[in-house]
């Protein structure tokens, strides 16, 4: 079947409309700080049968529902997009990080997968009609699918949320990312087997052959392929035109891996995903290359895929409130409880564990990819697919606010201004370094019931190494001690106290900073933040001249 010139024209117009709508809605959603993928899906719903098709059916049919050959062309592109999405997703899976994060990551990811899988499987197996089973003879596979759909986590949404909350580069951020990566790996493995069980792809191999071939493929790629790619990548990056050479290399291998897994009977996406992991693990692969591949896929192919979802399904006629509600409730219960418990048993505090649970709850694009593949394979009804899309949107949109709420007390959100309390800021008449330090320690010890002698000995031990008179009228005595929270007090001396400062100016603002012994980076960060505040001489003069404590606090916060 060949495409006629008219088919090609309509196909190109359809693609252009899809890309334009995706961009417009994606950007609009970014403006209100929401994932652009949500905008892309909305774009599909608006230009698809749900809205545009209902309001202007003739025009809709002219652009999108014109001929079988253009449908095949669009279908081919969206399939390619899914394979690419999984390839880039695999590129970012860092197995070493999973091993490095140890027990907590393992508990979080394993319990965070097993628990939602179990409740999804049991619900779908025992109440298949409530969850909208399409073919009752596929009850077991349907239950396995629902379990997997509930246990998956969307790495891109998780990464975005961590970035927006400014906790990406923190222990909790690493833990969530590592757990999400592990989740991704197992989730796609299980889902590929489910598709294999449906027998939609491959050449009719026996299930034992499929499982053996898959395991051999995984082992080869992760043990040997990874090492081979690691040797080849520096050669390509250095000797062949950049970035063309490396981009070609990544996509060629990705498509070959996809072709192999499709051939043996598990879906093409899995091959691309495993190849992505094998390539992405290379220490030689430049960060710039990773970002370039992401840009290439997410600017063109991913939007086409997400818009195409809205084109395939009518979200109004396929909307079933009960199924949507069941999926949303099961999704929240499964992930928040599963991952939360895993993190808690792995050693995290209650609030942190809950934050991790909500962080891991975002399903985003990955859920939709999973849903569309199940829909194409005839495993689920459109009503279930719509419920999955809505569940993915609800879980993704709610992830950041919930995480933010539970992470309020998290160490990384601590900054100097947040530590200021009026009763721990005072004017002093003392005239010696030691007595002002003692006064500050006494204030903190009384307020937080700390051991005065222990703190004094630690602060003075630090003071003996080198004076903490930092200059510009600031002195910053500090110590790392066995406490769980940061403590902070300020003494203001109008006369000034000799503190052996480098600039020989007397200290007029003396800040005592006590930080937990097991958070050394926190101390460095806070010292650096305070030092930066004291750069502007004029502002410091104004600060010292503050009429009262409230005025001082206002001036200090504005530094």
């Amino acid at each position, binding site marked *: 079947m060949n495409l006629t010139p008219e088919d090609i024209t309509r196909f190109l117009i359809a693609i252009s409309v899809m890309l334009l709508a995706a961009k417009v809605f994606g950007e609009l959603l970014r403006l209100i700080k929401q994932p652009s993928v949500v905008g892309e899906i909305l774009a599909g719903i608006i230009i698809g049968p749900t809205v545009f098709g209902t309001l202007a059916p003739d025009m809709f049919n002219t652009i999108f529902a014109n001929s079988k050959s253009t449908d095949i062309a669009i279908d081919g592109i969206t399939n390619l997009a899914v394979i690419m999405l999984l390839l880039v997703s695999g590129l970012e899976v860092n197995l070493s990080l999973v091993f490095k994060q140890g027990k907590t990551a393992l508990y979080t990811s394993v319990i965070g997968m097993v628990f939602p899988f179990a409740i999804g499987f049991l619900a779908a197996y025992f109440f298949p009609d409530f969850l909208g089973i399409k073919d009752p003879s596929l009850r077991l596979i349907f239950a396995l699918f629902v379990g997997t759909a509930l246990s998956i986590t969307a790495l891109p949404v998780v990464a975005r949320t961590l970035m927006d909350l400014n906790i*990406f*580069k923190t222990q909790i951020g690493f833990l969530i990312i590592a757990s999400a990566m592990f989740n991704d790996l197992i989730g796609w493995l299980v889902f590929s087997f489910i598709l294999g069980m449906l027998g939609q792809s491959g050449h009719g191999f026996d299930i034992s052959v499929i499982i053996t071939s898959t395991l051999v493929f995984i082992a080869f790629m992760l043990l040997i392929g990874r090492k081979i790619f690691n040797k080849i990548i520096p050669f390509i990056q250095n000797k062949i035109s950049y970035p063309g050479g490396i981009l070609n290399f990544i996509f060629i291998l990705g498509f070959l891996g996809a072709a192999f897994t499709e051939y043996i009977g598990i879906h093409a996406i899995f091959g691309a995903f495993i190849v992505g992991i094998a390539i992405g693990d290379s*220490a030689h692969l430049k960060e710039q290359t990773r970002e370039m591949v992401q840009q290439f896929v997410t600017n063109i192919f991913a939007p086409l895929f997400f818009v195409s979802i809205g084109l395939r399904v009518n979200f109004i006629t396929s909307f079933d409130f009960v199924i949507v509600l069941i999926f949303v409730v099961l999704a929240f219960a499964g992930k928040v409880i599963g991952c939360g418990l895993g993190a808690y048993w792995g050693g995290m505090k209650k609030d942190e564990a809950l934050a991790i649970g909500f962080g891991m709850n975002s399903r985003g694009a990955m859920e939709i990819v999973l849903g569309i593949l199940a829909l194409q394979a005839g495993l689920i009804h459109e009503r279930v697919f719509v419920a999955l899309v809505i569940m993915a949107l609800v879980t993704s949109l709610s992830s950041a606010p919930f995480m933010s709420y539970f992470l309020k007390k998290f160490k990384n959100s601590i900054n100097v201004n947040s530590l200021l309390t009026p009763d721990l800021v005072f004017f002093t008449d003392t005239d010696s370094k030691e007595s002002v330090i003692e006064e500050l320690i006494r204030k903190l010890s009384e307020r937080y019931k700390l051991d005065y002698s222990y703190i004094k000995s630690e602060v003075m031990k630090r003071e003996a190494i080198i004076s903490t008179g930092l200059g510009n009228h600031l002195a910053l005595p500090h110590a790392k001690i066995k406490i769980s929270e940061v403590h902070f007090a300020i003494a203001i001396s109008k006369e000034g106290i000799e503190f052996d400062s480098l600039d020989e100016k007397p200290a007029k603002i003396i800040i005592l900073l006590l930080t937990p012994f097991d958070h050394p980076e926190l101390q*460095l960060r806070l010292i650096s933040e305070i030092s930066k505040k004291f750069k502007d001489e004029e502002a410091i003069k104004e600060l010292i001249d503050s009429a009262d404590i409230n005025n001082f606090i206002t001036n200090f916060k504005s530094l």
Partner: protein
Amino acid sequence: MFKKIGLAVTFSPNSKALLKETKLYSDQFAAEVIFIHVGSKNDSIEARLRELISSGGFAPENINIVWGQGDPAKVINKKCIENGVDLLIAGALEKEKVIKYYIGSVARKLMRDPVCSLFILTEPQIEAKPFKKISVQIDYSYESEILVNIAYQLAIKEKASEICLIREYEVPGLAITVYDTGSTDETEKTRKIWHSEEKEKMDVFINELNLTEIKVRGVCLYGKEGWEASNFVKENNSDLLIMSAPSKKLSFIDRIFQHNEEFIFKELPCSILLIK
């Protein structure tokens, strides 16, 4: 700094150089030395060993040899524990052949599961050369402060020209945030912010230590831990890298999915001092 030094002594080509180096460090630290030999004990071997050890500059009456039989790495570790050794000195090839790397040579086995601090010399010399550039892999922890203090004391003794503190940091998954914006501007900006935060922390860390006799500089590198340090040490021509010993025994799986220490152990960029 170290009170008792252990040296696994064999009749290998670089034994004499290792003995000379050990003599130098035992004098520097005023430490006692015990010699560990893995093999069966008989008069002839003992006489040859004593002769070899004496050629390293050790007084014959002070030569204390402990004997053991079995897997060399296990025996050496066992004898170190039994004798309270706090620094074990050993020689190692910069790079092992592929199979040997995965199976593990004696030196690599010792590095992967050290029972005390371990000094690995890649090129022991009969005329021992002092270390000129010492690098230290740090993470700002209390253990890092100990590493830097050891490096500082050693640098003073060796009259080194600089100590370089290496801080590596990486945020896996950062590239995937491009997914949402389609642009690398934000990741670039974020990385710059992180880098300047790291530099500020490094400056405070160095100031806090107040090390005045040797030039101390800090470098912050974005990338995989161990891999970046290894590359930097090579480019910087450092002749000694001081790092923390692995917190738990490194297994075969760590060689498959390499991280931190294994990136360094795979191809030693220079001599290594692992502090336990």
